[in-house]
């Protein structure tokens, strides 16, 4: 095989569209893999490789011109779930009945408390990446996935619904609840570290 030794002439994949539509999401899939594995680099490495290998093998089933990113995230998460044989039904009762309007208000309330304690938003400038990563990793899986896909990767609700295989209403309640839990975790940490005043006065 001459391709690897081709030197200055970079080899190219011949499968139509894969390089242009799938490969640009390599960083995003790697980041998502890191989130899914709780920051385990070796596992994220395997997961990213396996995701792209599967995507490559099944590229003919991808609808060209639709969003390759959500498609790749779906594969990535499925590979991860299978590798963990995780009980995805475990938390179903936690959120299946939640009303997303109620969650939206509760989530706003959690941030409202934070705002009371930190009107200058020093909070947003004070955190170390590692403490935010730890707070995100500490969320229950279902809520973490929704928050990461929406707030960090910018997917639309309908795309997240596709990736997670749940209705949009469930996406909303998971997302709002995840945000509330995350705001609370960061708030608690911020108080501990003195970033926010602690106890609204």
């Amino acid at each position, binding site marked *: *095989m001459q*391709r*690897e030794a081709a030197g200055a002439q970079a*080899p190219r*994949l*011949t*499968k139509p569209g*894969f390089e242009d539509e799938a490969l640009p999401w*390599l*960083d995003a*899939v*790697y*980041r998502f893999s*890191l989130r899914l594995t709780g920051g385990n680099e070796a596992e994220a*490495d395997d997961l*990213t*490789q396996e995701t*792209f*290998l599967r995507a*490559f*093998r099944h590229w003919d089933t991808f609808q060209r011109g639709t969003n390759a990113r959500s498609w790749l995230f779906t594969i990535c998460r499925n590979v991860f779930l299978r590798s963990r044989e995780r009980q995805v039904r475990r938390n179903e009762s936690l959120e299946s009945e939640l009303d997303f*309007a109620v969650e*939206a*208000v509760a*989530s*706003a309330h959690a*941030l*409202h408390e*934070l*705002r009371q304690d930190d009107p200058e*938003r020093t909070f*947003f400038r004070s955190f170390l*990446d590692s403490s*935010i*990563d730890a707070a995100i990793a500490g969320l229950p899986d279902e809520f973490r996935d929704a*928050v*990461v896909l*929406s*707030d*960090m*990767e*910018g997917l*639309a*609700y309908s795309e997240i619904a596709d990736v997670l295989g749940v209705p949009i209403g469930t996406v*909303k309640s998971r*997302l*709002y609840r995840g*945000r509330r839990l*995350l*705001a609370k975790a960061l708030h608690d940490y911020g108080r501990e570290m003195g970033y926010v005043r602690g106890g609204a006065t």
Partner: protein
Amino acid sequence: MTDRPRLNCREAVEQLWAYIDGELPAGDADRVHDHLEACSACSPQHDYQRAFREFLKAQARAGPAVPADLRRRIFLRLLAEEEARP
């Protein structure tokens, strides 16, 4: 001001995340927008929620890129796959 039905604070807050996420239909988003313009209680809340979301987004942008070595290994594996199953 328009003659659209006005939202109260509770209704506005219920829709605030969907509004910030850009997921509300245009008419609903307009009503939330009108409420925020007029309400000194909800407007700072909106700003703070939006800042929280931006804060998380900035974390993602600062996140790691795929290591060059992994990028290379994936690419070589795909090339090998292509040659094995053309």
